């Protein structure tokens, strides 16, 4: 019996590996997705090793002698109206922007996944109540609700993550619930039930692994828009606060300077946001095509 179980586990592992390899092969075929992945890796590396590239002090140290300078050898991307180095701000801002995009997505997937799985699996009253609340929350304009939450909790990084998670969780709950609903009708779930497997074990070992594909697709398509929403909230001053470097907040600072013709303050953070969102979108599209070949032609 022990031997059989070990054999079964080995075969399952092999199958998973095979599936991952196949997904990776399909992903690699997609040139745009690979390009996106390359940019994304660069951004992640910059965020991880920000302190090695340029010290954090450069991003917040004010220097009145070099206010609003254009790009030069000393300041690669120029300086802002307080004389802070824009390059250093971009490099260190990458940490916040990427954390906001990826962190909120992971958080919403975990929370939405658990609630959605419970609703889909057990149904009944719990399901009805949760779905009703989701309906209500989804009727409130998302950005407005996030604004109210940030205002209630106070504008900073953690609260911004909480606010964006709250507005995105309902849609995750819905997607995951509908996926789970289609899975619990499958024969292998009946088989597991017949074997006397506990509900928790069924959810964790049989239902969730099979629901992973659609969940990953939904999440990867959303990372970029979460990042843009976070940047947007910082832009209107309801997110990461000065002097902490963040791309959205930098663009807000750039508004007045731009009208005086200081274009570099607008372009560098803007391009940084757009480029990272583009890379996330391309990777998301590639993952969707690789995981769900049905959508491909």
């Amino acid at each position: 019996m022990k031997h059989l179980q070990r054999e079964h586990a080995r075969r399952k592992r092999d199958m998973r590996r095979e599936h991952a390899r196949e997904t990776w092969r399909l992903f690699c075929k997609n040139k745009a997705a690979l390009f996106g992945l390359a940019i994304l890796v660069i951004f992640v590396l910059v965020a991880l090793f920000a302190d090695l590239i340029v010290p954090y002090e450069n991003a917040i140290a004010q220097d009145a002698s070099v206010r609003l300078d254009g790009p030069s050898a000393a300041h690669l991307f120029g300086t802002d109206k307080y004389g802070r180095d824009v390059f250093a701000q971009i490099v260190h801002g990458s940490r916040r922007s990427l954390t906001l995009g990826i962190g909120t997505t992971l958080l919403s997937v975990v929370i939405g996944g658990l609630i959605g799985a419970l609703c889909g699996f057990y149904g009944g009253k719990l399901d009805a109540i949760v779905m009703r609340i989701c309906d209500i929350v989804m009727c409130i304009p998302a950005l407005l609700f996030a604004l109210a939450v940030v205002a209630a909790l106070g504008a900073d990084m953690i609260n911004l993550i909480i606010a964006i998670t709250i507005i995105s969780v309902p849609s995750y709950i819905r997607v995951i619930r509908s996926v789970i609903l289609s899975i619990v009708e499958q024969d292998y779930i009946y088989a597991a039930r017949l074997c006397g497997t506990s509900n928790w074990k069924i959810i964790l070992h049989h239902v969730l692994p099979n629901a992973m594909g659609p969940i990953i697709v939904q999440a990867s398509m959303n990372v970029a828009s979460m990042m843009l929403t976070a940047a947007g909230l910082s832009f209107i001053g309801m997110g990461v606060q000065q002097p902490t470097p963040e791309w959205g907040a930098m663009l807000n600072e750039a508004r007045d300077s731009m009208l005086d013709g200081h274009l570099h303050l607008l372009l560098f953070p803007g391009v940084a946001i757009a480029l990272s969102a583009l890379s996330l979108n391309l990777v998301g599209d590639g993952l969707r095509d690789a995981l769900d070949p049905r959508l491909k032609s």
Partner: protein
Amino acid sequence: MLKYICKRLLLMIPTLLGIIFIVFTVMNLTPGSPGRTILGTTATQEQVDQLNHELGYDRPFLVRFLDYCGDLLQGDMGTSYRTRADFTTELKGRMPTTLKLGIASFVLSSILGISLGILSAVKQYSFADTFCSTTAILFASIPGFFLGMVLIYVFGLQLGWFPTFGGTDFKSYVLPVITLTLSNTVIVQRLTRTTMLEAVRQDYIRTAKAKGCSKSRITWKHALKNAILPVITVMGINAGSVMGGAVICETVFSLPGMGTYILTAIRSKDIPVVMSSTVVLSLIFCVIMILVDVLYAVIDPRIRERVTR
């Protein structure tokens, strides 16, 4: 059908009550009181308490909640804590700006998005398709506030064709509408392309081809009618989110609409204004969603059969 619409309208009441309760609770979690925000840090505690009492803010949470709901039922949307201005008057002044912005960009993005999506799907892998799809993913990645600022710089500052901020004439709407339209067009275009590609692979399309239907008839009558349903949902959501997106767009272009009004209200803990604005915007969103469902029933006889039964 009429019965279905009435049922949906009635169901809107508990939803709206839920929304009011959630937002009211969130707004009351905010640290500080409106009195302190209005008078500033220099005022004494007595002055702050006095003002809070005048505003009725010192009453218990539930009393204020029920009071607000009661006023709302009588059509009284409340008065601003900050300016003491009547909300309804303010709404009349500001709503047209946001509506013009929203409707213009909704109409433009729907027309552009659907037609470009069909073009991409019908001529898959052609130059037009590649161009549209590449541009789409590019614009999906550019945040509206950055795009708006670039537009201001190029067309407002450098070329001087449009005003750089404010204003209520036709010209001052052009850049904001373009900004909002571009990001929404992308969503509609991408979805239309996907659903159209799925539709043209179905058996009934093959049947239509075998019958000898013309290509345009197949595209417009057989494929589009089936592909359009998910697109309508997304268009509805877009129309709703235009209201939320207006907050950022109006900030960039300094337009005196609902967006900038709500933002100021949230910042200064102006609870009546935040509440009533949320109610108005959510109401619009709910009505749009009902319209979407009714449209579903009009377009798809299968759904019509289900809802009218």
